[in-house]
């Protein structure tokens, strides 16, 4: 199980980083989303993997680690806010610069 979990994080991180390195803003947004998933799962994993024992008092003797969960919960929400902000930034850049290339100009245009 641990191996599978680590594998999933690794694949998510790989895909995220690869997309971050693309030249168009939309790909970068997708990459950021995937990388956020990887980071959230990674943080969550720091509390180790527990099956069928949510951190609720009274359900059983064993319990998952609640602290990483609380951290990740806010991380998810803030990650959403950040995604929204980057989306608007990308739109603004695309409109102002007439290109959705991350450098704000198409590579075939002449660089000064």
């Amino acid at each position, binding site marked *: 199980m641990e191996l599978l979990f680590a594998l999933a994080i690794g694949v998510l991180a790989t895909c995220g980083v690869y997309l971050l*390195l693309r030249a168009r803003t939309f790909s970068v947004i997708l990459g950021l989303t995937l990388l956020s998933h990887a980071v959230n799962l990674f943080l969550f994993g720091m509390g180790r993997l527990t099956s069928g024992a949510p951190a609720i008092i009274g359900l059983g003797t064993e319990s998952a680690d609640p602290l990483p969960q609380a951290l990740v919960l806010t991380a998810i929400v803030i990650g959403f806010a950040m995604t929204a902000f980057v989306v608007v930034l990308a739109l603004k850049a695309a409109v102002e610069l007439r290109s959705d290339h991350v450098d704000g100009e198409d590579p075939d245009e002449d660089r000064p």
Partner: protein
Amino acid sequence: MALALVIFLPLLGALLPALNRNATTRVLALLAALPVSISFLILLYWAPAIMDGHTLVRELSWAPSLGLSFALRLDGLGLLFALLITGVGGLILLYARHYFEGKVAAARFYTLILLFMAAMLGIVLSENLLVMLVFWELTSLVSFLLIGFTGDKSGARRGARMSLVITGGGGLLLLAGLVLLGQIVGSYQLSDVLAAGDQIKAHPLYSTVLCLILLGAFTKSAQFPFHLWLPHAMAAPTPVSAYLHSATMVKAGLFLMARLHPALADTDLWFTLVTLTGMMTLMVGAFVAMFMHDMKGLLAYSTISHLGLIALLLGLGTPSAMNAALFHLVCHAMFKAPLFMMAGYVDQATGTRDMRKVNGLWRHMPVLMVLSGVAAAAMAGLPLMSGYLSKKMMMTESLQLTAPDWATTVIPVWVTVAGLFSVAYSIRIFHNVFFNGRPIDLPKWPPRQPRPGALLPIALPVLASLYIGLAPSSVYDSLIHPAVSAARQLTLPLFDFTTLGADGRLIVMSLTAMVGGLVFYMARNTLFRIHSRLPEVDAKEIFDWVLRGAVRLSQNRVYQLENGSLQRYLAFLILTAITMVGLAVLQVPAWKGSIALTPPDLLTTGGVLILTLSAIGVVILHRQRLRALIMVGVTGLFVSLAFVRFSAPDLALTQLTVEVMAVVIMMLALSFLPQESPNESSMGRRGRDLALAALVGLGVALFSFAVLTRPQETISGFFLANSVSGGGGTNVVNVILVDFRGFDTLGEITVLGIAAVAVYAFTRDLHLKERVAGNSGSLWVADPHPVILSMVSRIVLPIALLVSAYIFLRGHNLPGGGFIAGLITAVALTLQYMSGGLVWAQERMLTHFRPLIGGGILIATATGVASWLFGYPFLTSTFGHMDWPIVGEFELASAILFDLGVYTTVVGSTLLILANLGKLMTVEGPGQEVG
């Protein structure tokens, strides 16, 4: 602290001319002379004690932890230089009063020259090496301003730049040298450094320290091959040249060599470096001076040659050589300053400094002619003149050398030849200007005789020069001897001037120099013709070429690293991260930890498979953007399933709702962006990125695996144990959010609110519709608001709101809470927007969104503040039980109010973002503000 006054009076006095810009030069000169004369008098007051061999040290603690104290020292050497600086400085102030007569720039000149004087005094009176360095740099900076005084002329700008680069660069080397020196000695106090000579010379870093410090001194004192800046500094007004470039600043390097003599000198390395450099400078300066047609150029090169001579003497290192060095230094100041001033007057009177034109001025300026004649005679070293004595002292020194072998024969010959040249150029500057036929094509005619008062600053040093020549011992005993004793840190016997000239070889050497110089001058026209045929080497061109090369080199390096491509920067960042983390992580002995692996079940394996495949699918499909977006949705869904699988129901709910909102927002954005990404990365680029990404993924996976299989120590036990008793809730995650770590949450909802308001601000004047190209729109449905969807969504809304209220209320005890309930509400309202359209939904909204955000944060903060009223720390919660019919008994904690704040903020922020993005879709564009 009278000693500090010597420095600070000119420093503060610099304000006087600056504040009286419109005063006449006469008033300005008086204002400037006031602080300088007080400093001079203070120095004279101390002089008797210093001449008796006392040393005055005053200390003011500044930054003791850095070994930095504002310490000043007045001893014989410092006194000699300080008197020169203030004395010659006073003459220059007087001279400038006539030179700048009626010019507006006078106030600026007086301000700068006083600043410069303060800096110079700082150098020679510092006890702490670092303090001295500060003043040293100050002289370079002020000198830059003074050389570039007439900043509208390109020659002045270039000259100033050149001197700043060379002397400033030397200053940096000196900094390095002095810091090393201080490290070796363990103190930056001059007294300690001078006492530690043997320790320094035995240290392995001695040669490095010596080279660095000497480079600093050589650049400042215009020693070969750094002498190039000095002739170009002649673009400065003549008072500046006379003061900085003959009497004071260029002698700072020589001062440094004399000052640090006990610490650094008397080694073979010192002898070789300083003597050879001095010899080269002496010869190059003397030779080139003869061929300069510009009066100031000739004087500049002759100054270089004299600086070389003094350096040569300092290199020899015997006490008597230092006698000669400092004696000549004083003589030089006394004859060179008048000659510069003469050149300035002649320049002003005739409009040119070209000696091919300026001839026969004796008819027009007889008094100036006499004064210049005395100064030139002193420079040539004619009998009875001050220069004659110093020349003899120097020749005696050259003959007394015993080692090394080459020096015993080479140096006397060398000195004689250089003396020959110096006689020649001295004759030239006098004879050529005042005799030599009649003037040719002077821009101003007839030349105006300088007023008698204007000749005073020339007459005084000339008289001093004569006095030195006639009564050398009185000057020597009172000034030079204490200075040499202080510099050598020894008590030395007095030099006996009556013994000079006893050696027969001296007479041969002097006569050779004098007769040879005269012959050389007679043959000048032939020599000039030969010289003009030689290829001309312009130092400025070489300097500019070197500078351009340096700039181009660094530009290329910068562009290689920083070419404007964000992709490249990111790749660099990732590569750096991989390298640094990789190096550390490779030392982990075993990836697998001590905990046994839990066996995977089929369902989880399948989930992980879909998760990874959908992530890979995003990458494969990323150019077809809509499909990639759908894949991202799948990934997010399976991430929330992963949270379910591993006992995190709160996270799963949050992730699920966030995913819905995120996909909706990205979908909105996509409708304005091109539907496909062009295929523009080369195979090599894609391979490189894939390799980087794979390395990151591998690292993350290995690291996660390593952590997951190791036992943990967590602080969560505290939260689990205290959740019910302290927070009144059984859902520990929620209790942590709203109670234990409530302050963090308050910060986080604030960030969320800020992001939403930022989105609002960004979209306010964004005109999208017509401006984004490449939007085919073929994938989009024609009917924006399908009937079935809008009917269903209206039924769904109340149910969804009910669910969200339920989730909110139970959140303290079971999975749920403000974040999740807020997101559910937002999703339900989003559905209304999607089905009914922005305008339709907006009309039905009861409130704006920005007040919601602010209100939410306020509620949360107020909950925290309320606990202050009861005398508890910020955000302390309390709770009680409440019986609610039908719903049953539940706990009512004050934390639920806090959670309400969270809920409100989340709803407000999410909808504000969504509505503003959606607003861009409407045909009206920005139009009415939303939210």
